[in-house]
């Protein structure tokens, strides 16, 4: 059984987790910007311990439609990683990548097979750089499983990590970063390690 209690994390532990979010997402944002040859900014990451029913509200309403990419983390750190883009951002990213013009109907929830696979690829690259940073920082071995992608309501997508975390408590700890290019792209990275992995991460960083 794990010793760590997420309800009783110290400020310093919170800050450390924030720093991980910062470095991981920073690396991922850089990778994405390079791939798409665009400039991207990133917000200061948030680390929040939230009751399940409030999770979706971090981003928007539970029934807001987003593109979600889910990956499992394996190795010495285990858990899940999730990226969320609003549909407009996902279309814009894909169009950039595939050198297509943005269409008028960028809010559409339809993506072609080709576009879906491009989005998965973005997930692959972004998560790879996030996890490389995490691995280097902690000196722990971590890699991602093959991404799977879904377009659906935030609440429905968040139920997946929530039910995983529901086994440990009534709240979910999220390390969340937002990134974007002007107003076109808004996305969220979420790192959701398993409880034992938090302990390993914090220990590796000398806490």
């Amino acid at each position, binding site marked *: 059984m794990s010793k760590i209690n997420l309800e009783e994390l110290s400020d310093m532990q919170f800050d450390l987790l924030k720093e991980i979010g910062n470095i991981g997402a920073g690396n991922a944002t850089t990778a994405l910007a390079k791939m798409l040859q665009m400039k991207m900014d990133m917000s200061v990451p948030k680390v929040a311990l939230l009751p*399940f*029913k*409030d*999770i*979706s509200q971090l981003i928007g*309403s*539970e*029934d807001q*439609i987003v593109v*979600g990419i*889910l990956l*499992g983390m*394996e190795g010495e750190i285990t858990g899940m990683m999730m990226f969320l883009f609003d549909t407009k951002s996902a279309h814009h990213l894909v169009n950039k990548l595939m050198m297509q013009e943005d269409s008028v109907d960028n809010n559409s*929830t*339809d993506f072609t097979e080709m576009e879906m696979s491009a989005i998965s690829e973005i997930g692959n690259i972004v998560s790879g750089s996030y996890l490389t940073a995490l691995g280097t920082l902690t000196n722990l071995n971590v890699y991602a*499983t*093959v991404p*799977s*992608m*879904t*377009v*659906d*309501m*935030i*609440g*429905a*997508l*968040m*139920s*997946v990590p*929530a*039910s*995983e975390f*529901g*086994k440990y*408590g*009534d709240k979910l700890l999220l390390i969340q970063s937002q990134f974007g290019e002007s107003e076109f792209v808004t996305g969220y990275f979420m790192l959701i390690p398993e409880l034992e992995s938090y302990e390993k991460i914090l220990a590796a960083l000398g806490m």
Partner: protein
Amino acid sequence: MNISGMIKVGMGDLKVCKTPGVLTTLGLGSCVGVALYDPVSKVSGLLHCMLPDSTQFKNVTNVAKYADSGLIELISQMEKLGANKTRMVAKIAGGAQMFASKSHNDTLKVGERNVMAVKMKLSEMQIRIIAEDTGLNFGRTVEFYSETGKYKIKAVGKPEKII
């Protein structure tokens, strides 16, 4: 209550109401939305459970998180509002598999296990399921109308469905 007069049920949460209340939960994924209804008193309840079985866990602080303990609590709250358990019927929705499973991780199949757990508990309590819309791979927003007993299901890119 929110602006539209609907009573919102969050993830791992349950609510009960008398007629003409409307219960809703947004974005059900692998979770299951169980609507219980007593057609005579029209007392209704909605449970949004996330996990199948509370007996596997030591510290159960939120009974509404689990199918089994959530249903017991839902029924007891409905009875306090004047519902009769022997008259209750159930409509269930949700339990989708949101992401295609590419690993052995059984979290991804939790939807299926949630639905099974709900069905088992309901049959144990002798409550009949009169309608269901479960499984598959998409999220659902549900609304339960206590006045008519209708359960409205909305999903992305699909026509509205009433069961």
